[in-house]
């Protein structure tokens, strides 16, 4: 069980770095979608006996994070008709190095935390911390609104991994609710992106800080 779980989480941690290194909007969206799908499989490998509800949540997560949300983002990108290069505030190379340092820091930090003995052997906490860190880095370091949404999604993936620690005790309905919230949020952001594009003719969020009447 631990082997396959660690493999999935390590894959997600690798995808964090790929997301930091990707320079085009479509590839960033693809990476984030892939990460969401990989993490959607985590509940399946964590449970000892497969319950119907767990399968349902896993399928819903994979479908939402892998298909629906990226679809919404691609749609927003197409309708806004924007330049697909990401112009980073923090360059790709520095953000990759900072992300790698953050990932290593997350692994080291997770060793120190007083966790339950069954969680000591897994990468869950390290993966969660690393994803949260990467999400923050993407939010800060990229200027396009859509890429900031991708950062937000990576951040949410990290929080989702934290939630996996409590898989036994949280009702899965909560997970379902979070997923629905996330989709609505991305949906709303898609509309906002379209509005920003119409009002300001750009998606660069730096321009939004100097708004005047």
């Amino acid at each position, binding site marked *: 069980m*631990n*082997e396959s779980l*660690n493999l999935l989480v390590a894959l997600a941690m690798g995808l964090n*770095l790929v997301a930091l*290194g990707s*320079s085009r909007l479509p590839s960033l969206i693809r990476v984030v979608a892939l990460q969401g799908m990989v993490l959607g499989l985590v509940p399946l490998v964590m449970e000892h006996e497969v319950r119907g509800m767990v399968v349902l949540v896993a399928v819903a997560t994979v479908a939402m994070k892998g298909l629906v949300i990226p679809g919404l983002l691609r749609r927003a990108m197409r309708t806004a008709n924007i330049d697909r290069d990401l112009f980073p505030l923090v360059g*790709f*190379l520095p953000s*990759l*190095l900072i992300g*790698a340092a953050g990932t*290593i820091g997350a*692994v080291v930090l997770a060793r120190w935390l007083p966790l339950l003995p069954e969680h000591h*052997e897994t*990468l869950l906490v390290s993966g969660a911390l690393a994803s949260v860190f990467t999400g923050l880095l993407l939010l800060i370091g990229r200027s396009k609104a859509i890429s900031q949404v991708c950062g937000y999604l990576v951040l949410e993936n990290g929080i989702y991994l934290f939630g996996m620690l409590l898989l036994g005790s949280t009702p899965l309905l909560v997970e379902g609710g979070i997923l629905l919230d996330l989709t609505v949020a991305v949906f709303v952001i898609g509309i906002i992106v379209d509005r920003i594009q119409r009002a300001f003719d750009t998606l660069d969020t730096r321009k939004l800080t100097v708004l005047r009447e």
Partner: protein
Amino acid sequence: MSAIVEFLVRLAVWLLLAPLLPGLINKVKAWVAGRRGPPVLQLYYDLARLWRKGVVLSTLASPGFVVGPAVAWVAVLGAALLLPLGPLGISLSFRGDVILLVYLLALARFCTTWAALETGSAFEGMGAAREVSYAVLTEAAVITAVLALSLRSGSVELGTMLASSAGTGSVLLAAGLFTVLLAENCRVPFDDPNTHLELTMIHEVMVLDHSGPPLAVVLHGAAMKLLLFAVLLVEAVLPFGEWSGLGGAVALIGGVALVGVGVGLVESWLARYAFKRVPLLLTTAFLLCLFALLVAWKGGWS
């Protein structure tokens, strides 16, 4: 007596088989492109032809212009002889020989760039500058990979380090070392060995003014370096300590051939990267080796 015979066999493998690998890569590239391509032995013909030709020397060049390639060739050969060769094992082993290997490769690079600068040509200066600036990043990756291997095996001797497999991190290590191989040997995403446009080349531009036997030495040294990195990659990933005799030989030859085919496929499918994207790729290689080191350190997370 048998030690001498074994040493001669080892020397022959490195000297005679090295030019085969570029031929294999070119054959793969031709096959993917649907051409017939040059014969696999093309580099041997080239070397023989160049050896018979005369040398044109610039009036600016000091003796370093000829000495540089020679020293570089000897350094690469020395580095190659330090590597264990599958079932043949290791000929010369001492504590810290892996550090000597890294420094011999650095010496070879220094001599090549020195000879390039001797010509006083601006283009060759550019090539030399690129070569050493990429080397800063590739050497970091190589040293990290070496650290990962030595941590895994608890030794700083090449024979012990390469005998066992790299364990859980071997996929990471293989990807990192393959990228380093491409960069060190100036293969496609970093440099195009076919181009002859001075503004974009790295290795080819450094040897533009060499001719005759010195050029043959440079080309043979480059082929040997490619074989060296391929052998290093294969031995770092596969557990050669457990195989002996024919099985080990087959595994080594198969692995090196696979690396050659891989290089050929990469060259067929990828274009050369823009200069500003190269550091990103090299840093990725460094990070892959760094994470392999992390995995080796944590003992494969269990």
